[in-house]
Structure formats: structure tokens, C-alpha cells
């Protein structure tokens, strides 16, 4: 079985079969993670560069571990202190690194479309580890893997993404992936953080958590960035927490337990209360483990298809 594309740039337009293939493959890699020796050989001899133009700890570590566990050679490139700060263009950086004979590039970048640009200037397989507010496909895949594990299937589930949808690549990738898999998706957040025409993507919009909580199986809670307050999108963290923070008090009013997800890192007691984050219905650490498995699956499927 092969994926349709030789890159993973996003989940918009990715076929149901391909998502299923990645999720199924991830299950067998998750099993590898349970072994005493967590290493398998499929990418032996392959060289992968993690090109990170935006600070990230957990995604980069997650990718790096996934790459090493597949026996690939790994190089990390972070923009801080690199040639980029000396004015080198992304194109030059990428071409120079490619001239060192690499096979795959994992890129995180603050600009939407940067991974797409990369596919036009290098030959390597490109994996998007987050581009601007556009997509973060492996995050959505690990979210889907976590939900599928918990419920046995995705189709028919009801998921609400809560928070700053406007700036969230996690939200977009989740919307595309979940919709393709037959999940009922809604979003909830302050009106200033709901992008225009989002309903056209087939999601319902809520402005009150109380209205959406009784309607869903899971809440995917996004991190709120404090700097959005300065740009006038919300008045204060206190108000945000009161009205859009996911708390035990609010979810306890639901007729049945609600699964709590968060892409991390959490602002505890801001967008999500600590008791919920650590509570019995939280799958947040499961998401992190599944992130490993999903990234191994993606790297494996793309890296062995050439």
C-alpha cells in the first residue's frame, strides 16, 4: 500500500484510504514503542533533516525520536543562530542542505505554504510539521489515532475544537482530517478568533461552551497565546478562562463523560483546568505517545515509497 502523494503537506484533500493507511500503520509502530528495544531498520541509510524555523520542543523531539527509531540518520537545523539569521533565503538554505544528499525534510515554519514552496525547490520528500496557521497534519493524525483507539472508530463521533481557531493549524488539519473520516466537527471560541466563512468547511460554530458540551464526545482544547490579547482579540486571560476555559464544572453538566484532548503545551487553568488535564477522561499523554507512532508511520510510508 502506498500513499497518493510523496509529501505530507496537509490533510486537506488527503483521501480516506490514505488516512486509514497511516493510522493502521501507526498501530504496529505503537507496538514497537512498547518493546524493550524500540528500534526497527526500515529507514536505515536514509538521511532526514528537521528544518525548524520556529521554536518547538515537543514536535521536534517527537519527530527526531521517530526518525531514530526507524534507524534514519538525523540532522537538526534550527533557525536560531543559523544562516537564516544572516539573511539566507529558505530556498538557499534548503538547496544547500539538499546538496549534502538528504532524503527527507521535516519542516516547521511560521509562514503558511512554506512546505509547499520547499517541494518546488528540493527533490526530497517533505513533511509539514506546522506551517503558519495553515496545517499541522501529524498533530491531527495523532488526534485521530487517539480518538479511534478510544472509540474503536471515527465515523459518527462528535468533536469540538475549542479556542483560537483563527491562528490554529491544529484546528485546520483536524477539521480536514476529521471531516474526511466522517466525524461531526464543531468549533467554539470568541468571535474574534473564528475565521470568516469557516462554516463553509462543514463545521458548526459555537460561542458558548455550555451550548456545545452536551453535543459532543470529545473536546480538543487549543492553547491560547497571550500575545493575542495585545492584538485586541480578547480582553484578558481571566475573562477567557471564565467563558472559554474548559473546566470540570462545565463538562460535568454533560450527560456522559467527555474526552479531553490538548495539543500541548497546556496553560493550566487558562484554557483547560488542571483537574481535567490530569483527570480520568484526559487522553493528553496518550496523544503524545501516539504522536510518536503516527510520525513513524508517516516517515515509514513516505521514506520507503521512492
Amino acid at each position, binding site marked *: 500500500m502506498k500513499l497518493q502523494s510523496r509529501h505530507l503537506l496537509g490533510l*486537506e484533500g488527503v483521501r480516506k484510504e490514505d488516512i486509514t493507511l497511516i493510522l493502521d500503520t501507526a498501530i504496529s509502530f505503537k507496538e514497537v514503542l512498547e518493546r524493550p528495544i524500540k528500534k526497527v531498520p526500515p529507514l536505515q541509510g536514509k538521511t532526514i533533516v528537521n528544518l525548524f524555523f520556529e521554536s518547538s520542543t515537543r514536535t521536534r523531539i517527537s519527530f527526531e525520536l521517530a526518525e531514530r527509531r526507524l534507524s534514519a540518520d538525523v540532522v537538526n537545523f534550527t533557525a536560531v543562530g543559523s544562516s537564516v539569521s544572516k539573511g539566507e*533565503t*529558505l*530556498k538557499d538554505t534548503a538547496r544547500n542542505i539538499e546538496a549534502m544528499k538528504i532524503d527527507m525534510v521535516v519542516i516547521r*515554519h*511560521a*509562514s*503558511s*505554504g*512554506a512546505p*509547499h*514552496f520547499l517541494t518546488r*525547490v528540493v527533490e526530497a520528500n517533505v513533511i509539514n510539521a506546522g*506551517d*503558519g*496557521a*495553515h*496545517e499541522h497534519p501529524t498533530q491531527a493524525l495523532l488526534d485521530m489515532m487517539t480518538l479511534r483507539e478510544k472509540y474503536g472508530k471515527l465515523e459518527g463521533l462528535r468533536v469540538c475544537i475549542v479556542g483560537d481557531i483563527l491562528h490554529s*493549524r491544529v484546528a*485546520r488539519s483536524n477539521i480536514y482530517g476529521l471531516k474526511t473520516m466522517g466525524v461531526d466537527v464543531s468549533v467554539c471560541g470568541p468571535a474574534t478568533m473564528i*475565521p*470568516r*466563512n*469557516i462554516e*463553509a*468547511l462543514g463545521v458548526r460554530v459555537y460561542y458558548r461552551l455550555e451550548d456545545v458540551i452536551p453535543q459532543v464526545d470529545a473536546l480538543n482544547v487549543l492553547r491560547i497565546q497571550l500575545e493575542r490579547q495585545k492584538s485586541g482579540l480578547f480582553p484578558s486571560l481571566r475573562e477567557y478562562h471564565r467563558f472559554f476555559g474548559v473546566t470540570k464544572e462545565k463538562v460535568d453538566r454533560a450527560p456522559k463523560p467527555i474526552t479531553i484532548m490538548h495539543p500541548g503545551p497546556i496553560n493550566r487553568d487558562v484554557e483547560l483546568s488542571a483537574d481535567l488535564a490530569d483527570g480520568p477522561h484526559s487522553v493528553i499523554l496518550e496523544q503524545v505517545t501516539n504522536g510518536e507512532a503516527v510520525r513513524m508511520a508517516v516517515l515509514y510510508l513516505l521514506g520507503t515509497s521512492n
Partner: protein
Amino acid sequence: MKLHLKSGRLIDPTKGKDVVTDMLIVDGRIERIGQSLSADRSFETIDLKNKVIAPGFIDMHVHLREPGYEHKETIETGCASAAAGGFTAVCCMPNTNPTIDEESVARYVQEEGRRVTGGLVDVYPIAAATKGRKGEELAPMAELSKAGAVGFSDDGSPIASAELMRRVLEYSSMYGLPVIQHAEEQTLTKNGLMNEGLVATRLGMPGIPPIAEELIIERDIILLRYVPLSKYHVAHISTSGSIGCVRRAKAEKLNITCEVAPHHFTLTDAAVESFATNLKMSPPLRTKDDVQALKEALRDGTIDVIATDHAPHTIDEKEVEYAQAPFGIVGLETAIGLSVTELVNQKYLTLNQLIEKLSINPRRILSLSVINIQEGETANLTVFDPEKEWVVDIQAFKSKSKNSPFHGRRLKGKTIGIINNGKSWFV
């Protein structure tokens, strides 16, 4: 120079003329106009069967980049591009370095234009409305108009302050020259990269809402009503809402005109899906409904002018991430092709109306002399083939820059040549 233009279709909207005719041109002057003229061997004969002869086209919105940004374009390469695109005149925008905000720079661009083209392409400066285009103090408009400026604009930036805009309108009204507004309420467009709407939402791109353009136009209309003797021209109009504003102001008989760029009536924001940076311009590509509104407005005369907003940038400047790329695309060499393909062939404009929007109306707005196509007059002519099909090849561009989203596009309608000030250029 002795030319025998043979069997061309002369369309002269000012005289309501549309006839197949011959024309003899000697040293830049129209010697004879008439059917089946004979000319001796000293004349070069150009067969113009099924080709259109029109009063010379002018592109009133061009960034020639010189002085200051000669790596993108020079007056020489920009004028060569204009000639290849069928324009006998261009207006150069003042966002050069130094800015065209004082006499010497205004004179320089005209003289350099004459020097490099020998008069084939007239270069008319649009001067800055405010010093340094900073939106703080009035530019010396009287001196600038004496030095040949044909309009005032801070193009690239709006004249943001309502107070200063009022003063610009008042001051410029003494000289009868238009104030050309880049209508953008910048507090609404901060960090914006493309039209705000479904496509931007899908792509996670910061949006430029249509209302940012409409707010400034509506505000300026209120100012114009208060300063009715001034002339106000909207640059590169792009939204359906803006069209509504201009249409209502025109119904009120205010001194308002506007222009549209070919890319805005040809492409929509859906194209940005590719993240190709040659789709990044300001104002951005809008929606299908906006494109439809622009075409209707061209048809009903709400839009007076087609102008390209020719904005050269080098390949290196454009071959970067979308957010990092500069705004703007080149347009001189695809203007006729896009206009004929999108407007004439789709029956929004007749050839006569197209010529009005590329020659008659812009010259009227800029208070330039009417081109008189009759015996004894200087020939200022554009010749084009409205039936010629061709494929855009950026490598064939005369412009120094190749930043066009239309590479590989099949168009109908192409320049054959131009004649101006005793000079001629033919394909």
C-alpha cells in the same frame, strides 16, 4: 521614417470612426488617410489586414523602479516592456528612491524616458501627494505640476489621514490634476497576505478584507463631496463593494474615476491555493463575485480605465515563502491579451470601448492632449491584432522582471506595434 500602413481597421472613439483604411506616415506625421493609397518604394509597407489601429495606449499605473531599484526595472527596460505591450505612454508611480516628490526627480524620469526611447514611449510622472509618501506634509504640488507631474499619489500606501487627504484634494484642485488613491485602511490589513474569505481561512493566511478598500473610498467620497472641485481617482479597484461606492458617487456627478488592473478581472483568490508568490499583489485577488462586478462595471462605464499596476520584482525577491514575498506583478506585456480575452471576447466591451479605457479615458483624467488621428497631426498610434492567439512566455518579456502569474496562459489579442513622436516599433 516613411510608413505605409495598409488596410488597417482604424478605430478612433473620439470621432466615432471605425473604418478600414490606409495611412501614410512621414517623419512621425500623418500625411494621408484613405482607402487604397499608393506609396512609392521609399515607404516601408506594413500590411495591417484585420489589425486594429487605435490612438496610442497609455498605462496610467506603472512602477518603473528607476531611480533606486534598477535591479527590478529601469526606465529603459520598462519602456521597452511598454512598447511591447502596445503602450505609447506610461505614468510612473512615485515610490522610487528618491521619491518623486520634488521637481528634479520628476524631470529626471521624463528626460530619461525621452533619452532611452527617443520619444517612442512618453513617460509622465505621477508625483507623491505627500513628502516622502509619508502621509505627513503636502508635497510641493505646484512645483511638481510645473515639472510635468500629471497626477498625485502615495501609491503603495494610502493617504491615511482624513485631514491630510482633505488638504491634498484642496491643494491639487488648483492645478486640475487628479489625486490617485491607493485605497487601503491599513489598520484592517496589518500582516494581511491575501483576500479575507473562505480561501484564506482554508489556507490559514492572514486576510485583507474587502472593506479595507471600501472604507477609504467611502471616506474619500465624503471628502470629495466637501471639496467638489478636486479630481479623485481610485487606483486598482478590486471589490464589488468599492464598485458600488464609485457607482453611487458617479450618479451624484462627483469628480470620481477609477481604474482596474487586468489581473483583478481575470483571476480569483482561489488561485492562491498554489502559494505561488506571483499571485501576491496589493490589493489582493478577490472572489468570483468581485470579478463579475468588475466586469459589469467595465461594461457600464463605472470603471473608466484599465491600468496594469506593473510592479516588477526579481526572481530572487519572489522565490521565497509567500509571507516574505513582495506584493506586485508585471503587467505591461499581457494587458492587451488579457483585456481582449476576458473582456472583448466575453462581450463585456467592444473594441471601441476597450480603446476608450486604454487611451481616451486615462488621457482625459490626466488632462493630456487628445490624440487626433488626422492628416497633418503627429502619429501617436497603437496597432494590435485582436484575433492573434499566443501563449505568454515570461522569458520573452522585455521587462527586466518576469514576475507574472500568466506564464503559459493562452491569450487572444496581441500588440503589433506602436508609433509615437516620429519613432516606431513593430513586432
